[in-house]
């Protein structure tokens, strides 16, 4: 499918999903849970642009996500802009953070880059903890309106926004994957020196990847203050964001746009079900166990499994 066609078809799918859920499901809890799953679709897809396509493991997802959330907090305190505007502003702030991180760390490789991103998350959290205007370590209460225009309940409104954002990030990821940029990023992932020797401006492309990836993560974080109504550094910088953002693409498959989508929907849903039926304390345990299982059995994720099966099927068919 051509890139332009995919944008239209995927938008239609997202719109259909929105209408179907709004028409069929009245239970408010569904929207609370679905919001979180969709938020992970955005985070996992964003992470994969740098981690999967370019091969740079980022453990600092929480920093970009929380910076998005706190951008919304600042805007909320300063003025009264609508949430979509906050999402755009959060994208700009976290995109800038991504660019800065890229500029400072991209000469590092492998484990060293990963550790640097982890350090970035800690620095960013320390910054917020010591910033009283946004509540410091005590956190801050955000009063969310009861109703949203056109959308009925506010949580349904946030759910719709996150669905839109999921569509945007998935379609963007697929566009990148099939473009000249995506091929260049893949070359960097495979062999950076060979890429450079083939004319790929590796530093510039990596900066594009960190900026885009960071911006999408920040956008995913912007509606968070309205979703939780109480935001504090401990929960917004929570390790689970970073772990899930790595685990979901890994489980789904990192070389294709659909991998993070599958991983996020699968893992996010399991976590939401476990939260209701057993306990939310189990969430990280589930991720950990699944991660170990996949690393051993299917290191290329679900997408890799399917591709391998198809290939062996074709080979058997050919040898007949």
């Amino acid at each position, binding site marked *: 499918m051509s890139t332009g066609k995919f944008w239209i078809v995927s938008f239609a799918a997202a719109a259909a999903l929105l209408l179907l859920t709004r028409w069929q499901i009245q239970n408010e809890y569904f929207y609370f849970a679905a919001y979180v799953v969709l938020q992970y679709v955005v985070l996992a897809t964003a992470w994969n642009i740098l981690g999967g396509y370019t091969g740079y493991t980022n453990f600092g997802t929480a920093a970009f996500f929380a910076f998005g959330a706190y951008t919304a907090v600042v805007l909320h305190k300063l003025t009264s802009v609508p949430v979509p505007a906050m999402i755009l502003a959060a994208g700009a702030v976290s995109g800038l953070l991504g660019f800065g991180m890229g500029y400072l760390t991209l000469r590092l490789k492998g484990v060293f880059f990963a550790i640097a991103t982890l350090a970035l998350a800690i620095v960013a959290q320390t910054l917020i903890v010591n910033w009283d205007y946004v509540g410091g370590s005590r956190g801050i209460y955000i009063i969310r309106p009861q109703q949203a225009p056109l959308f009925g309940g506010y949580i349904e409104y946030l759910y719709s926004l996150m669905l839109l954002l999921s569509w945007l990030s998935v379609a963007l990821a697929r566009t990148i994957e099939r473009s000249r940029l995506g*091929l260049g990023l893949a070359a960097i992932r*495979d062999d950076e020196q*060979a890429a*450079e020797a*083939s*004319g*790929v401006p*590796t530093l510039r492309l990596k900066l594009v990847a960190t900026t885009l990836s960071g911006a999408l993560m920040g956008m995913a974080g912007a509606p968070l203050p309205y979703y939780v109504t109480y935001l504090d550094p401990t929960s917004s910088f929570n390790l689970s964001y970073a772990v899930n953002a790595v685990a979901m693409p890994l489980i789904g498959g990192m070389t294709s746009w659909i991998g993070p989508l599958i991983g996020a929907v699968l893992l996010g849903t399991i976590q939401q079900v476990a939260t209701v039926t057993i306990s939310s304390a189990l969430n990280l345990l589930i991720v950990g166990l699944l991660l170990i299982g996949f690393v051993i059995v299917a290191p290329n994720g679900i997408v890799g499994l399917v591709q391998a099966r198809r290939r062996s099927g074709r080979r058997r068919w050919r040898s007949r």
Partner: protein
Amino acid sequence: MAEPLTAASAPPLLEANRLAKHFGGFVALDNIDLAVAEGERLGLIGPNGSGKSTLVNCLCGTLRHDDGTILFAGRRLDGVPAYRRTRLGLARSFQLPRPFRTMSLVDNLRIPLLYSVNARPGARLHQAAIDERCLQLLDEVGLADKARRLPRDLTQVEMRKLELARAVASAPRLLFADEAMAGLSPSEVEEILGVLFRLNETGITIVLIEHIMRAVMSFSTRLVVLVAGHKIADGEPQEAMRNPEVERAYLGE
């Protein structure tokens, strides 16, 4: 065999003046002067650790040299990043093949076509033209039937051919072939030599870095010998090999 297109009056295509590089206290290159004429087939030899690869890395921008100047087609290359040098027409193959392992052979060649050839002013190959060029390049090195395969499906000699094809895909004026034949059987060496001769006939200047003396002597029109970061000989191959310093370096006292 076509005679090299050297013209004594024309300025060299590549010129390094007093090029120096050291790693800590170790002097890898000590004031190397090197000129490569357009169309030439230059052999670059020397014992292990003599600085051949360091020289190539400095000329291609993979390493930054400490001192001296590099001129390519009349342009200063000092501080120019590696990818820009490739776009200017300075290509290399790697000593150990470094294919893009998750990409098919066609996509391996697509990278330099998209990022080097298409990045040059005025050039804008379309999708179909790029596809065609990829297949043509693979055909030239005898890999056309494996166009959709992954590099892991290739044999050692095929890997070297892919490495050369990818370097050539950037449409270079000068190609460094860094030990493109190490570890190959005599018949495979002949195959790679054939590829290199054909490339030279299309006008690509070639610098061959090689240990296999038979291959170097049959290929090169000129020989440069490096020992311990110094250039100890530069000239007609037979003559260079008779140089007492070279004999000493290769055969011992």
